[in-house]
């Protein structure tokens, strides 16, 4: 196995691109990056470090929609979360599904529930919301009031 810890490899590779590194505990790390750097960081974690994308979470906050990509590094018992923030009202971010098939569904789901547009997504269709769900209504947005 490689001697260097994945977190250090990522730190060395990206340096100042990582806006914030928060080591919550020995096996939970949160790394914040700008949205334009997400594909590069995720590509590196998946291809070079052998991380497994558990899933991604999206949270609507006052200052924008946070997207978290959770990568599991099996041999180090460590879960590194890549955090980024996209601005409302029309959040947009580059898709990582182009090189990571595991991300395709979760990106479609994030579009369904939060209205985040993933550019260059290989399969930009609805996933979980019904076909007759109204356009432009996203149930996990803070301003969601229900549908008639």
């Amino acid at each position, binding site marked *: 196995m490689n001697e260097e810890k994945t977190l250090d490899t990522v730190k060395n590779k990206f340096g100042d691109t990582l806006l914030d590194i928060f080591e919550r505990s020995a096996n939970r790390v949160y790394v914040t990056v700008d949205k334009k750097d997400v594909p590069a960081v995720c590509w590196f974690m998946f291809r070079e470090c052998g991380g497994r994308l558990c899933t991604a979470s*999206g949270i609507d906050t006052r200052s924008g929609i946070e997207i978290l990509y*959770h990568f599991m590094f099996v041999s180090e018992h460590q*879960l590194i*979360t890549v955090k980024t923030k996209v601005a409302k009202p029309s959040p947009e971010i580059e898709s990582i599904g182009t090189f990571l098939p595991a991300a395709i569904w979760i990106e479609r789901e994030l579009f369904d529930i939060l209205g985040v547009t993933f550019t260059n997504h290989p399969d930009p269709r*609805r996933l979980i*919301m019904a076909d007759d769900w109204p356009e432009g209504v996203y149930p996990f947005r803070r301003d969601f009031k229900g549908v008639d």
Partner: protein
Amino acid sequence: MKRTVVPLGPFHPLLEEAEFFKLYVEGETVVDIDMRIGYMHRGIEKLSTLKNWDQSTFVVERICGICSTSHPIAYVNAVEDLGQFTIPERAEYIRVIICELERIHSHLLWVGLAGHFIGYDTVFMWAWKYREPILDICEKLTGNRNHYAMMKPGGIRRDLNPDDFPWVHKEMDKIIKEMEMLVGAVLDDPVLHARTKGIGVLTPEDAKGYATVGPTVRASGIPDDIRVDDPYAAYDRLDWEVITWGSCDVFAKAAVRLLEIIESAKMIKQAMDDMPEGPIDACIKSVPAGEGIGHAEAPRGEVFHYVRGDGGNSPIRHKIRAPSYVNIPSFKATCVGHTISDVALITAAVDPCYCCTERMAVFERDSDEAIMSGKDLTERSRSVTRRLKEDYGAETPVEKMVAKLLKGQ
């Protein structure tokens, strides 16, 4: 060649839940597959944010009826990660017992259904017969056959009664013996070799790309198991092995599940022996602001929960990812190139079992004289098996074990 679309679902007999598969076929061969989910969307993530930290445990328990303790344990792991709470050791061992009992009954349920799907109803009845005592244990220990409501942030809700342990030990010994027999019988059956080997191959590269989990990835030879990769409860203190199988096909998925049952039974025995005395609940008073990630190895793979709190009484975001969410997309890699009949097998991850004629005899209609006794039929069945074995060259590492078991009888 003309391309045809064959719709499978959303409601169809092989899957308990509604899912829609669109098969693009050329002749008999599947060239592409498309999936549509969302028919069972119940808004549980949203619902959980309307409940308090304690109530959410019950909400997530309702996500799945079979692995009903996997979601609660992943959730309590997440809450405990959020607040960095440590839980009493006794509670950790009890969590292991509940989780492993669940794995045994879930895998047995699957083995039975798998047998039923490919027409070997004997195995369906057999596996479910073995499953019943496990459910009895669940009922005796927790009060319920399913939906045990044992997990809570900080510990467990009810203590186990040590007076039950000798009986559970006996039942575990029994299930280990029964499973060794079933493993031998199932994995040695030449018909099943012919039907499941080389079908639905998920290469290790695809398994990584689709980030598949649980028996699906372990059947591709990758030893990913959350119980080892990110130990929770008392798994790091028990002696057990991660089961993998290298052939990547439907057969491998069956083998992994069957062998895991034996490991689970061993773990339960150890946990009962090693369990310390002491409190079972850390009595958490409040949950601070912050975020936490918890996961757990459910029978079908990793369950992933992410919670964020603002210091209040309920989570402000609760993200849940069930194992099938990442396993189903891998059908795109496993189904293409196979025939429609194989796709049914792959999608249900269908599997082994074996046909048994031992309790049947053929009688001449007008007399009581048996023209073929049970013994004759058994011999006849064995000769057919021998012939098939020669034809298909079924070779398995369990053959020796079966021979040993038969000798012991």
